[in-house]
């Protein structure tokens, strides 16, 4: 009952900043925000659609995210915050929690007189083994969550099963004298696939854009196995890792005997087989699935779930309504195919 009384006095202002970023204007806080009108901007992780677009921004992020952003061309300044190490501002206390999405990915927890907010950025639970794990505060008044895979057609197999699928595809392809190629986003997914393949001990070549991220992972203690940068002349017979865009632009086009596996949550869609001329679809996502999302909302039981990053907010809201959880849709953003 206390909470209801408090509700009437407290008000948390949450707004969408155009197509990129979310603001808590009263607390002077921005999440994955590219503008300059806020004092404290937090970057959840180093994927392009979350990184600051302006080079001169000054932002807060985890040390690993900062390293990865620099590898991807960010020249601005960042103040690094470790997980669980709170930042106190005049208006609030902010703590980063590991998001399980990619290395360095963080959720931002804000506590203030107006209540608390948990902003997820992109996240995955159970977490990617090539990340710092997943941890969540016990309670949050406002839960700002992505819902990239916000439909019940999306349900992931266990990590062990997917991991076995990845290794089996590689081994069987090599045994048939073909070169296996994994299509995986160059930051996060690529390294997770390498981590899965490491026990095979077979040499891996990864596309240059992903290669330059790898040592950050190794410094974080994640085993990426025996790998090198992609070399067109020597790639045949290695396990290859590249992106969907590179495979259409001549990557390993000199190797005629190759088999392609597409690793993405979108690989659930049968149509991606022909679109990408993939032999194998492995629905390995760095986001949580629909059922995990609904379960998490139930566990957290916030006053309000604010949904973002999905064309299917209505479906998520329908499920939350059935569970008596208040929800709202924070405008829309188009997700990069990662």
């Amino acid at each position: 009952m206390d909470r209801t009384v408090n509700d009437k006095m407290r008000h948390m202002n949450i707004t969408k900043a155009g197509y990129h970023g979310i603001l808590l204007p009263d607390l002077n806080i921005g999440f994955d925000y590219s503008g300059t009108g806020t004092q404290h901007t937090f970057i959840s992780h180093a994927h392009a659609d979350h990184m600051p677009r302006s080079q001169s921004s000054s932002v807060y992020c985890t040390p690993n995210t900062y390293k990865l952003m620099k590898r991807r061309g960010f020249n601005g300044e960042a103040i690094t915050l470790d997980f669980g190490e709170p930042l106190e501002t005049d208006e609030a206390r902010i703590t980063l929690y590991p998001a399980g999405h990619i290395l360095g990915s963080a959720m931002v927890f804000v506590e203030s007189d107006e209540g608390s907010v948990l902003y997820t950025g992109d996240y995955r639970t159970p977490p990617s083994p090539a990340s710092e794990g997943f941890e969540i505060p016990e309670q949050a008044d406002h839960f700002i969550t992505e819902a990239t895979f916000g439909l019940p057609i999306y349900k992931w197999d266990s990590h062990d099963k997917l991991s076995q699928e990845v290794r089996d595809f590689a081994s069987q392809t090599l045994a048939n004298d073909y070169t296996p190629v994994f299509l995986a986003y160059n930051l996060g997914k690529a390294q997770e696939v390498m981590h899965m393949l490491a026990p095979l001990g077979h040499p891996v070549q990864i596309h240059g854009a992903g290669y330059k991220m790898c040592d950050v992972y190794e410094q974080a203690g994640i085993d990426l196995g025996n790998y090198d940068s992609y070399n067109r002349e020597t790639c045949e017979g290695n396990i290859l890792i590249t992106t969907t865009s590179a495979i259409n632009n001549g990557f390993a086009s000199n190797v005629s005997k190759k088999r392609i596996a597409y690793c993405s949550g979108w690989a659930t869609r049968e149509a991606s087989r022909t679109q990408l001329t993939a032999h194998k679809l492995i629905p390995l996502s760095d986001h949580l699935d629909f059922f995990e999302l609904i379960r998490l909302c139930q566990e957290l039981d916030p006053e309000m779930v604010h949904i973002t990053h999905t064309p299917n907010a209505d479906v998520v809201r329908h499920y939350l309504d059935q569970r008596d959880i208040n929800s709202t849709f924070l405008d829309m953003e188009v997700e990069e195919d990662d």
Partner: protein
Amino acid sequence: MSDKFQQLAETAQQINETRSTNSKITICADYFSAIGKDEDLNRAAQFLGEGAFSSVSGKRASVGSRTYSTCAAEFCEIDYEKVFKPCKTALGSSSEAIEQLMNNIEVACQKREPAQLSLEKIEETYQQLYRASGRADKQEILRETWKQMTPVEIKYFIRIMTQGSLRIGFETRSVVSAIAEAFDKEVDDVRYAHMITGSVGRTAVLCKNDNLDKASFNLFHPLSFMLASPIENRAVEDLDEYVAEEKFDGMRAQAHISGQQVELYSRELNEITHSFPEIQQFFLKRDLPNLVLDGEICVYKEDEILPFQLLQKRMGRKKPSKEIIEKYPVLFVSYDLLYHDDRPIFDHTLSKRRELLVELSQQHSLPITNQFEVSDHDHVDELFERALAHGNEGLMLKKKGSTYEYGQRRKSWLKVKKPGGTLDTILMYAHAGSGKRGGYYSDFTLGISVKEDERYEEEFIPIGKAYGGYTDEEMKRLNERIKDLTVEKYGPTLGLIPEIVIELEFDDIQVNKRTKANYTLRLPRFKAIRWDLGPKDTDTLKDVERMYQEKIDRDRLKQKENPSFVFHQ
């Protein structure tokens, strides 16, 4: 095990997951050759190659997408509108959505207890669905069957039931090749047997038992139609080897006639006799020998061939009323003869077949197309203009020395057509391409304006989907621009801010009550991307309605002089 439906579903799935056509054929051939009983081989080949029923049986399970989709939503205990539909949109396929939901949703898993149903049992189920009349009865059958199936079985059960493509990159043609490989026979012989028996299942059994030579052409089993190629792709040098006929604005059909029996088949090989009782009567009155005719059904009234749009009022009607028959009387105009003197004659040359057809036409007073020798391109143009003046679609050029190439689209028949018209439309949605066009948005939904139309609340509504007519350069530029205009993403589809205007060319406008606009365009394609125009310049639904009406009302040249067809009455 070889008689279980689960194995057929797994084989289909394995074919789907294999890229090379030869490997797909081998997987299917291995499956066929492991099947023990003839009856099961017949069923398996039938299901993979044609669907629940043979195309010539005239039988259908008649379970619409809404019927099985709402049934699946209920089975999974999810809301059809709020949950099922977005899932279907994201995957672009109801049956794929059902497979995933059956897999993912716990209550659905609890209801299902896979029972390894046999092919025979599945065949019976399709028969039950055919006999059941109401939606509720059909849904009851679906529910009971699904309870005993795995998700992958359910997916293929639905795809086979709807007689559509299995969407595994493996069409009837490949199934025929797999039959040949399984039983070590020449593909051409198997294809011939399939063509004249009209049944993949029977062909497989003949093949297995070394009885291919016993395949015989049977009247009342329609033959796949010979098709024409557009002339622009096939420049004609040897014009004197061709004859010309007007291309009718009607419906292609095949007539099988024997004694007191007359049946008509559509291009999709469906039996359509009941829609056109006067054609049946017309043939019966003429005391004809056993025949198979290829020709066109047209609305013909007061010496005029009337447009296809009016013929549509007769199509798909099980029992047309007397009033409708009087208002839109139809005539079957023949242009080819495939069976004569009690044997198939598709291996005769066109000239020879024509000779026999002319003879029949004179003896029995059958309307046949007028055929013209062509001398040069000017002559072709002249004939083309006259065909259009008759209200016809254009001209057909047919090679005199060609055989009847059933089921094929080659250079022996060429069509010369004129675009029906153009519209300035707005780009509403972009769809991800597949195959060669993978990685690009290559298919586009185009809309027309209904902003000032009191019947609609939207600004634009779709009028057609186009996936050609642009250059690679234009497609790339379009893809660049689309990035900035995207406001929504539904799986492979992008919703766009209406800004890009496309000049769309099409062959014809047809009424289609199932679309929001009530009209669809035939063969819409890009004519130009109008970077110079904006959303305000888009044509309106009223423009479409006007164009449709003009086409119906236009003056037509009577059939008295230079007629399109000859009819010795």
